């Protein structure tokens, strides 16, 4: 086992991890504003990729038109979902909210596949599949692109949450009643966070769609995204980034050693183990707020 190989595993793991962060940022945005764990983020991601494909492949638009169009459409899809389905469940037990997002997930997945079919397609971002050599390490170009998108989104949201609009969103996540009392429209704020999460879903869908093809498997990212979000703290965007890197490295290096023992496929096992251990040991995650349940 030479060091270069270990370094390669680590760096590639971190890059993949940042792609999980991309997904997790969508979850965090919604959880932050409304404490709703959005289990439909996987389906939103998939839908985002399919909408991009519908514009670029079916209608023949160039990608630089198709992606912004999809972003706009998905923004309103997100707002619509919140307005139609989630808003009236406010204050209900968490099981109903969870079930609602699962129902939305199943519905969106079914509808997407009914419209566009389930066969895997590629986005054709035009990123070369040729690996990039850094020293002796082999790195995947698309992973680097995706990781950069994740970091760029992180910076964008970091700045956004310091803007006046962002501060208002944070106020909403702190206290609904107090937000109403100073004239902040909680409904619009929560809707906005769903819209933003759906935009993130488009980015996630395009990047992951380029890596593994646009098909149903995009929605299976949910478990990894959730694990990253929980490990980082469900309401922390910086947490999502850090936890993504940690999970990515653990998964890549860990599975290399574990696969020899258990005979392959240990990635999912590592992810599940990280999720269970996080919840057991530190439920609020690395950077999350320390109020899991109000007494």
């Amino acid at each position, binding site marked *: 086992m030479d060091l270069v190989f270990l370094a390669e595993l680590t760096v590639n793991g971190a890059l993949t991890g940042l792609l999980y962060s991309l997904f997790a940022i969508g979850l965090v945005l919604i959880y932050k504003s409304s404490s709703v764990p959005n289990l439909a983020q996987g389906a939103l991601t998939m839908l985002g990729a399919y909408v991009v494909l519908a514009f670029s492949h079916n209608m023949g638009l160039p990608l630089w038109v198709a992606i912004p169009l999809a972003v706009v459409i998905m923004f309103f899809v997100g707002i619509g979902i919140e307005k139609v389905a989630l808003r009236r469940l406010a204050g209900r037990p968490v099981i109903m909210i969870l079930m609602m997002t699962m129902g939305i997930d199943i519905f969106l997945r079914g509808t997407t596949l009914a419209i566009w079919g389930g066969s895997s397609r590629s986005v054709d971002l035009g990123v070369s599949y040729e690996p990039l050599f850094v020293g002796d390490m082999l790195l995947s170009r698309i992973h680097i692109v995706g990781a950069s998108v994740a970091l760029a989104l992180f910076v964008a949201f970091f700045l956004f949450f310091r803007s*006046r*609009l962002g*501060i*208002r969103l*944070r*106020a909403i*996540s*702190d*206290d*609904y*009643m*107090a*937000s*109403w*009392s*100073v*004239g*902040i*429209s909680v409904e619009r704020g929560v809707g906005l966070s769903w819209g933003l999460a759906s935009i993130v879903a488009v980015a996630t869908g395009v990047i992951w769609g380029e890596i593994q093809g646009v098909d149903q498997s995009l929605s299976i990212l949910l478990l990894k995204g959730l694990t990253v979000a929980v490990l980082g703290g469900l309401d922390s965007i910086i947490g999502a980034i850090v936890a993504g890197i940690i999970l990515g490295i653990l998964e890549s290096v860990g599975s290399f050693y574990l696969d020899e023992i258990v005979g392959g496929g240990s990635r999912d096992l590592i992810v599940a183990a990280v999720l269970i251990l996080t919840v057991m040991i530190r439920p609020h995650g690395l950077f999350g*707020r320390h109020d899991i349940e109000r007494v």
Partner: protein
Amino acid sequence: MAQPKTTATDQILSLNSIEVLYDSVLLAIKGVSIEVPRGGMVALLGSNGAGKSTTLKAISGLLKAERGKVSRGEICFDGKLIGNILPQDRVAMGICHVIEGRRVFEHMTPDENLEAAAPMSMSRQKVNSEKARIYEYFPRLAERKASQSGYLSGGEQQMLAIGRALMTQPRLLMLDEPSLGLAPFLVAEIFGIIQRINKEDGLSVLLVEQNALAALEIVSHGYLIENGRVVMHDSAEALKANSDIQEFYLGGGEGKNFHDIKHYSRRKRWLS
């Protein structure tokens, strides 16, 4: 009971026998009428569960969040009926409600708390000058403006809550139990500042208090609410002089027993 002799335009706020229903079954307020003169300070007094906070929520529209609604009567702010206006639009009109229990945005700094409350239409310069004005009122806040609000002391949090409300540029400030759980010298300090804002800016204030003694020192009029009804209202001096008020709310007089208190309440309710 004597009605104050004023014309409608002198009132910034008037409630005309409103009723509030929670969950379509629970009648919490049963015909409350209140008037706040423009630039005046009025107190709503009463014991726990009398309906003071509910009255404020009816005015600010926050009832909606608790599945309550105004089922009868009208709320008139500045000559306009506001019964069907959303809470955030009422804030834009100039009604701001400092809710009970110092609900500051705990995970944000005081500075961010103030910014969150500034209307989106307010210019950057104006936000800064408003913040400076509020720090001038509450110098303690300026000292702690970069720390996390959740770790401020109770008095500082109350000041922050009031300062945050002032950022919305209100013309009517409604305060729900600002003295709750605070040391007497802090209550005096906060009430002094409220009085100062009232004098300097002509801000109308509707104050809900259980601490009737402190409240009656700074307001001009007081309303006494019991079981969702106004059972007495008069000028602050008259209320302070009233023997029953002294007995039950100001803690003076010789001890009547609890039976008499209940009896009093019942009798007054029939009379009102």
